[in-house]
């Protein structure tokens, strides 16, 4: 299977650490930078709204938002289609992961498909943050003759709309984003998918929750410990099986926390130059973080390089995708 094109989309409002510090919730720029390594994050919410209301009633967030998860997903998909050199009419299937869609019916996939002019099967395949790995592993399940030439995968979330901005931690974490990628089981493209993996431990699923009508909440410490441990395990499995060479291969982790990512790359001895990330200035973009990182580096892809994406998150679920950059 190959990825023919990747796209990303982010809203334009920037929430700086200074802005969060001035909300007077007990956080500080120094604390945020030290603990999670995020300097800025992007949001569909206007800054005035956050300052005035702290998003105490998250239902209001949707009414004032300057964009929706569907908007972001559609923009990301257009970029992916263009890079893949395919038109909406070429797409034979759309699958979408959305952490907080505006509507649960009709599905996010069908709404994005309609906006793009895609006339095909479209449905949501959902696991929150590890969706890049889930979608790759899910598509790998299919017998090749039962997949169309081109599948559009999208992940989208506007989790800043679920944040309680009186909470000194949650406000610093999230950023809004979408990512999309075009996959083919038979048409070769720039990224060959070599290995996929997806697993879950639903017994611990209460650790990360996006409520329908209330604020996001999580057991931060438990999630952080799980994230580091599981990401290291995912990388080690691929190192052992494929003899990855971190002098030329690239690692992209779940874009949740820069400090955590540095702990992981130190553990695996991955040099900074081969660790791609965007969390420092975009925040935790849920499942879009890792694929958006690759999309932002699309023109840097070098033939022969192997990209390891290892992602973890709600469910609790985790997974990995190993890809090899092909000759043009």
């Amino acid at each position, binding site marked *: 299977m190959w990825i023919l094109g990747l796209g990303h989309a982010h809203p334009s409002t920037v929430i700086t650490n200074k802005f969060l510090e001035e909300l007077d919730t007990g956080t500080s720029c120094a604390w945020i930078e030290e603990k999670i390594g995020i300097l800025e994050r992007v949001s569909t919410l206007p800054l005035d709204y956050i300052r005035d209301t702290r998003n105490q009633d998250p*239902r209001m967030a*949707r009414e004032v938002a300057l964009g929706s998860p569907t908007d972001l997903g559609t923009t990301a998909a257009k970029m992916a289609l263009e890079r893949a050199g395919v038109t909406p009419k070429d797409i034979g299937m759309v699958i979408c992961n959305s*952490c*907080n*869609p*505006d*509507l*649960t*019916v*009709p*599905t996010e996939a*069908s*709404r994005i*498909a*309609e906006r793009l002019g*895609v*006339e*095909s*099967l*479209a*449905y*949501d*395949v*959902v*696991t*929150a943050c590890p969706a890049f790995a*889930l979608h790759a592993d*899910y598509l*790998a*399940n*299919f*017998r090749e003759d*039962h997949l169309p030439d081109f599948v559009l995968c999208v992940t989208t979330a506007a989790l800043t709309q679920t944040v309680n901005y009186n909470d000194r931690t949650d406000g610093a974490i999230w950023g809004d984003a979408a990512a999309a990628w075009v996959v083919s089981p038979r048409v070769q493209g720039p990224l060959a998918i070599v290995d996929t993996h*997806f*697993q*879950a*431990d*639903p*017994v*611990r*699923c*209460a650790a*990360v*929750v*996006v*409520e*329908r*009508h209330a604020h996001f909440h999580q057991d931060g410490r438990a999630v952080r410990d799980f994230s580091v441990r599981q990401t290291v395990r995912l990388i080690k499995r691929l190192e052992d099986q494929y003899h990855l060479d971190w002098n030329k291969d690239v690692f992209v982790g779940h874009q949740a926390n820069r400090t955590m990512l540095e702990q992981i790359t130190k553990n695996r001895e991955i040099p900074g130059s081969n660790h791609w990330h965007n969390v420092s200035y975009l925040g935790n973009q849920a499942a879009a973080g890792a694929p958006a990182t690759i999309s932002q580096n699309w023109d840097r892809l070098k033939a022969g390089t192997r990209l390891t994406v290892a992602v973890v998150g*709600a*469910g*609790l*679920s985790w997974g990995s995708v190993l890809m090899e950059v092909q000759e043009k």
Partner: protein
Amino acid sequence: MLWIHAAGAAYPSTIITNRFLEDLQGGAPMRGKFDNSHIESRRSVLPADYLRLTKNQDIRIGQMVAAATPTSLGVQAVQHAIGRSNISLEDIALILGDSTSQLQLIPTEGQRIAGGLGLRIPAYDIVGATGAFALHLQNVLHWKPARLPKIFASVSANAPTAFIDYSQGDAGAYLGDGAGAVILSASIPQGLTVREVKYRLNSKVSKMVESDLSEPIRVDGSTLEKYMHERSFACLREAFEAHTLDPKTTKVIGCEFNLANAIKGCESLGIPAENYFTTGPTTGHCIGSSIYGALAEHWDVIIKAPHTVITFAGAGPCEGYVLLEGVK
């Protein structure tokens, strides 16, 4: 090949009768809907006293007072299915979930149900709404056999009544809460054989049903009723023509709003009324869970029938059929 080893269902205890609904809406306006649908009652996670007092006009409160959740119902449905099979809970190695009326967006309903069962297995949602049963089966029929675990489950769990404003609109007349589950295997032949699955999505996204995050569910009852009948009947006829089924011995499971039309359609194909099965009259339309519920309730008849056609059409808008073969 795919086999359904067992089916289970679960419903909350509050019963909303037609009389109760009429009292909530001041009488006459709903009478016509009752006459056509033959729905006598529907189940709800909401306490009757709460409904009587508030009509659930603030759907946030409804979720807080709900006596059950899609998750708790989903857990019970799986346990019901397990109890009717010779499978142990621990044999289940994958759960595919579906819900469009989940109380929490993340984790997914499949993950919450797996967690509630104490299972540490891959679980994620493939969202199919009314057609979830068919979408899940179509998926796994197209997967490589080596990628499928020996035993896995498909679950749909819904509580749309928690999102209905009972002071107005059509939704309250048609919708009810419930969960359904099937235990599946692609390698252990037992129970019902899945012969064919057709799941189709019409590309034009419809507003017949909209489940907004923060607003009550909107249902265009008469348009949806018409669509459900026309397309369910078309799919039923398609199944009969494709497989030259015997209308005298073939059973039919449907989930149309309008039972009178459904039976008329069957009779026009020579299928006697007593061969048509649905749970709608007593449970209401439970979205994705409806099909599972009807299969669970009428399992003893379906398992002995040479063929059963499950036909559906609903929000999405989706349509299709599933052809099952009973034990010879």
